[in-house]
């Protein structure tokens, strides 16, 4: 599928994502200007107060954006999934360039002019408005430009916390290992950054050079431009009606398909509107979002829930784990629905050619050769109790060097391209067939059971019993083979998760 075809077939979604992106950047930049310029003035006029302001803004800039989302997620008011927190984060990032250039611009004003203004009888406020700010304006506009361009880039990360925007395509493309989908988000995002950069550079250059234009009018144009960006974004980004059921998912293909299955099951069997907050960055964020009510449901895996969420050592069989989980979730008024029917255990994957050449069938087979192998794992697997640390202990594994840490969605390709020799993927991944990979059996039964189970907020089930009824039709209906087929259709067949889910629902009707 070419880029143009993709955009054409996703036209309304694309418009909505572009809108969300513009809204995120426009709104956050306007607020950052409103806060940053006064802070910059303060920093320029009161260096003692200013130093800590600039220091703080500098500190904020050093925090990676995804980590910042993680920090803020649990906070009241500003935290939570969606555009609000994304805008808060974007504002924080936009502040530094604006504060800094405002301060620098004011400091570069010729002291003789400040003296002249004072001698003419200007009050400090008049001096600021009439002399200092107009002269600092080109510098301030340069700061706004930098802030907005950074904002366009950072806003793509906002998709990880359900704020939408063009990052949706980038994350989706990464999880599908489909460059077309990545470009579908990355190209317009880059174009947006370039056009904002170009427009503001033009304004800045005119301000610096001619002095012929009325500066006030230029600023008005710049502010109007950003406001229009925000307003246009708000129009394009669809509003959600009240009583909407919000379905979440993690950011890999299977989760997105499962999210679609839940969403479409509710859409076809009830009259409730559904909002999709798919592509959330990992277990932690999904669980947080569920507990704060930012999403109403998502599909979790029993072993993951037990170890990664409740930090309990994995023990017991499938039924035992499920019963224990139901109790634990009930404490937070969350309901564990019956399992969907398949297990998605961690799959220790190697290239098919290597497995056949070395006769590897189980993980134990691999142990003697491990010191010559390079491993690559997703961030979550490296951290989790039921992940890498326990695995090496259980099998006494030693690899060549420390495992490469990378995004889960990138590990398959890294393995296929021989950058690493062993990865921890999903047992149901469509890429296993696509790339001719072999899953090594967990012969020591290290991994706990990973039954896929929908977890739903109790309040939603009580308020809308029809939701529980609609979802009950999925119970036990998705076996591992079906899941793998759907994953394969999306990952290798480059089909839309929504279409694949719809066909499956039609089939099991």
């Amino acid at each position, binding site marked *: 599928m070419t880029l143009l075809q993709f955009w054409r077939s996703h036209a309304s979604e694309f418009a909505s994502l572009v809108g969300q992106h513009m809204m995120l950047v426009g709104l956050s930049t306007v607020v950052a200007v409103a806060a940053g310029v006064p802070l910059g003035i303060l920093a320029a006029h009161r260096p003692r107060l200013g130093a800590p302001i600039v220091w703080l803004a500098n500190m904020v800039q050093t925090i990676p954006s995804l980590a910042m989302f993680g920090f803020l997620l649990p906070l009241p008011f500003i935290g939570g999934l969606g555009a609000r927190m994304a805008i808060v984060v974007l504002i924080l990032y936009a502040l530094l360039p604006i504060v800094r250039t405002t301060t620098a611009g004011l400091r570069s004003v010729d002291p003789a002019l400040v003296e*002249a203004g004072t*001698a*003419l009888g200007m009050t400090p406020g008049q001096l600021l408005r009439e002399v200092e700010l107009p002269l600092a304006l080109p510098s301030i506009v340069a700061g706004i430009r930098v802030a907005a361009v950074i904002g366009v880039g950072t806003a793509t990360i906002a998709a990880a916390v359900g704020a939408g925007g063009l990052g949706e395509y980038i994350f989706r493309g990464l999880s599908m290992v489909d460059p077309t989908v990545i470009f579908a988000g990355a190209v317009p995002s880059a174009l947006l950054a370039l056009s904002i950069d170009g427009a503001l550079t033009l304004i800045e250059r005119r301000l610096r050079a001619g*002095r012929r234009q009325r500066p006030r009018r230029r600023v008005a144009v710049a502010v109007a431009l950003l406001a229009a960006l925000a307003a246009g974004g708000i129009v394009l980004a669809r509003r959600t009606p009240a009583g909407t059921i919000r379905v979440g998912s993690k950011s890999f293909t299977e989760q997105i398909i499962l999210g679609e299955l839940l969403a479409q099951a509710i859409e076809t069997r009830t009259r409730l509107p559904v909002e999709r907050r798919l592509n959330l960055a990992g277990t932690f964020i999904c669980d947080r979002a569920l507990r704060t009510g930012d999403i109403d449901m998502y599909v979790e895996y029993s072993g993951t829930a037990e170890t990664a969420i409740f930090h309990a050592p994995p023990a017991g069989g499938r039924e035992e784990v499920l019963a224990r989980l139901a109790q634990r979730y009930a404490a937070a008024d969350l309901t564990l629905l019956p399992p969907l029917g398949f297990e998605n255990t961690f799959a220790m994957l190697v290239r098919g050619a290597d497995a056949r050449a070395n006769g590897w069938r189980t993980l134990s087979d691999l142990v003697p050769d491990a010191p010559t192998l390079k491993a690559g794992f997703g961030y979550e697997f490296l951290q989790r109790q039921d992940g890498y640390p326990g695995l090496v202990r259980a099998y006494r594994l030693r690899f060549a060097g420390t495992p490469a840490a990378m995004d889960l969605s990138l590990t398959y390709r890294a393995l296929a391209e021989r950058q690493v020799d062993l990865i921890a993927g999903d047992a149901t991944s469509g890429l296993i067939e696509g790339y001719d990979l072999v899953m090594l059996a967990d012969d020591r039964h290290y991994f706990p059971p990973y039954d896929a189970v929908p977890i739903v907020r109790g309040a939603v089930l009580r308020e809308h019993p029809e939701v529980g009824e609609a979802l009950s039709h999925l119970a036990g209906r998705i076996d591992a083979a079906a899941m793998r087929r759907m994953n394969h259709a999306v990952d290798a067949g480059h089909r839309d998760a929504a279409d694949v889910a719809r066909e499956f629902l039609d089939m099991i009707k």
Partner: protein
Amino acid sequence: MDTGPAIRFAGVHASRGAVEVLRGFDLLIPTGETVALVGRSGAGKSTILKLINRMLAPRTGTIDVEGRSVAAWDRFDLRRHIGYMMQEVGLFPHMTVARNIAVVPALLGWSPSRIEARVDELLSLVGLEPASYAARYPAELSGGQRQRVGVARALAADPPILLMDEPFGALDPVTRGEMHREFGRIQAQLRKTVVLVTHDMGEAFVLGTRVGVLADGALAAIDVPSAIARSSDPRVQSLLQPLLDATAVLEGGR
């Protein structure tokens, strides 16, 4: 009308940083006079001007403007009441000539039509054709033209007092001579109280109705130019020396 002195310094001590530049400075400036204060660099010339419009405060002593201590004036009213011109002119580069001249009238809340009429009047007064100069920016003017706009701006709200800090110091000698004649013409018309500081005794002689010589933080002499020229005070003599040298060259050169 106030018949007393326009400006009075009594026993003023003032410092710039750690250096005491004025030590018991006294000065009386009658209304309508042009007093030119001459001194070496660092003699406290600019300090005197800034004390008058309260951009600096004295350590001790009093400064009265129109019979009232500057400390009793609202400092913004005081500054709008006093025209100020400095060496760098200090025209605002982001404002047109007309807007630069209109700064103080605008601060005083004049109506736009009154301001516009006043700007035209002042541009004509300083010899700049309003139709071709009002809309220009300072960067589009020559040094002499900027200086003229500076004069117009200082006079904009018709202040009774005008302070000039080395006003023509940055100009070439020919343009400076031209400005000196212009100043004489304007001052003959307006009769402002003018305090002008310069390190150039020649300029002081041309412009001042009285010339004051600053030395050691106080006034060494103040008198009409002809009297100053005859002074035997060594502190006055040393400032006169460049003028005497020039005259000697002219007279003895042939």
